[in-house]
C-alpha cells in the first residue's frame, strides 16, 4: 500500500455530515438528530460530526421531497460543498415524494436534480438504517478521495 493510499484511508475516517432540509416534514430531521445525539446510535464513533457550514461537509444528508420553493436554494447550497462529496437521500420523500407524491408543489424524485449515491427509505427511517446509510456513504467517499 502506498503512502498516499494510507493517508486516504485515514482521511476516510473523518466524514463530516451536513443536513439539507429540502421541504421535509421534520420527521426525518428528528431521526437524524437522534442518530447523532442519542448515545445508543453514536455516529461519532465513525468520526462523523455535524458541521454548521456546507463548506466543511463531506457527506450530505438530504431530507424531504424537494419542494419547488426550496429547489434553487438547495441546489445553491449543494454547489457550495467542496468535492469530493457523497449524497445520501434520507426518507422515502426523496425517492418518490412519499405522502406528498403527485403534489403540484414538489419536484420529487430528487435524483433529477442531485446525484444521489445512497437511498435510505422509510417514513421516517429508523436510526440504525440511517447509520448503515452513512456507513455505505463512507465506503463510497473513500473511493472518491
Amino acid at each position, binding site marked *: 500500500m502506498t503512502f498516499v493510499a494510507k493517508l486516504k484511508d485515514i*482521511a*476516510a475516517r473523518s466524514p463530516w455530515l451536513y443536513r439539507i432540509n429540502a421541504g421535509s416534514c421534520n420527521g426525518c430531521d428528528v431521526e437524524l438528530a437522534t442518530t447523532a445525539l442519542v448515545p445508543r446510535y*453514536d455516529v461519532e*464513533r465513525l468520526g462523523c460530526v455535524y458541521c454548521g*457550514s456546507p463548506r466543511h461537509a463531506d457527506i450530505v444528508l438530504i431530507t424531504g421531497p424537494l419542494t419547488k420553493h426550496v429547489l434553487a436554494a438547495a441546489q445553491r447550497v449543494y454547489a457550495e460543498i*467542496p468535492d469530493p462529496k457523497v449524497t445520501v437521500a434520507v426518507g422515502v420523500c426523496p425517492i418518490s415524494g412519499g405522502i406528498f407524491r403527485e403534489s403540484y408543489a414538489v419536484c420529487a424524485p430528487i435524483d433529477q436534480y442531485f446525484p444521489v449515491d445512497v437511498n435510505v427509505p422509510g417514513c421516517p427511517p429508523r436510526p440504525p438504517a440511517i447509520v448503515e446509510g452513512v456507513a455505505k456513504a463512507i465506503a463510497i467517499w473513500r473511493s472518491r478521495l
Partner: protein
Amino acid sequence: MMTSQLPILVAALVFPGGVFALALGLALKGADRRFAARLQGRVGPPLVQPLFDIVKLGFKRTMAPDVACSPVFFGAPLIGAMSMLLPIAGVYAPNAMTGDLLVLLYLLTVPGIALMLAGSASGSPYGAIGFSREMAMMLAYEGPIVLIVVAVALRVGAATGQWPVFSLSEIVAYQQAHGALLFDPVMWPTIVAFAFFYPANLGIVPFDIPEAETEVLEGPLLEYSGRPLALFKVMSALKAVVVLGLGVALFMPLPLFGVVGLIGWLLQLLVLALVGVTAVRVGAGRMRIDQAFVFFLKWPLALALIGVVAAAYFSAGVAP
C-alpha cells in the same frame, strides 16, 4: 532549564513547539472529545480523531468566495497558526528570552485577531457577525488576563524582593523553590478569574459565541474549506497547549525536571483540559454575547481586581 541551551528555532519547530506541540494539542483535543462522549454515555471517536480530521481536510478542495479579499482570507490562518509556535517554548521551559509574560500576552491575542480578520475578509454576513462577536469577547476577557498577570507579577516580585516580575522563568523558578501559588490563599481570587478566562480564550461552549454553529454557522470559519480550515484547526490545537501551559506555569509548576518533569507537565495539561474545558463544555449551554460580555465585566474582572489588590496589600510588608 533544559531548553535554554537549544537554539530558538528548534524550540519553535520541533520541541516543545511545532511538531511536539501539535501532536500534544491534537491529543488533548481527542481526549476532550472522547471524555465528552463518555460523560454523555456515548462511545466517542478514537483519540487520534483530530489528526484524521486534519489529514481529511488536506484532501478536500479549497474554495474561496468571489467577494473575499484573498490575501487576507488565506493569510489569516497562516498568521494565526504560526503565531502560536513561539510561546509554547515560553510556557514549557521559560528562559530569559522566551519567557517574557508581556510578549506572551501580545502573542495570545494574535489567534483571536486572525479569526477576526478571517471573518471580515470572507465577505459573508455570518463572518461579519462572528467578527463582531469575537471582538466583543476579546474586549471582555483581555482585561481580566492582564490583571491576573499583574497580580502574579506583584506577588512573586514582592516575595523575591524586587519590582513586579514579568519574567515567566523567574516566576516558575520561585514557585519551584517555595511552593506553587495554587496553595497561596492570597492568589485564590486570581486563580478563579483564570479559570473563567481560559475557556473563553479557547472558545469552548459556554463562550464559543463567535463560532456558534446553530446561530452564525461557525461565524469566521463559515467560508473556509480544505487546507486553510486545517490551519485553523492546527491553530486551535496549538493555542490549547499555550493557554493551558500558561496556567500551569503561572500557578502550579512542578518542582520536577527532565523526563519526569515532562510527564508531570503533560498530566497537568490533561487534567486542566478535562476538568476546566470538557466538563464545563458538556455541562453548560451557550451564553448569548451580551450575557457573556456582562458576565466577564462583572465576575472575572472583579475577582482579578480583588486579586491585584490582595497581592499588593499582603505583599506590602515584604516589598523593598
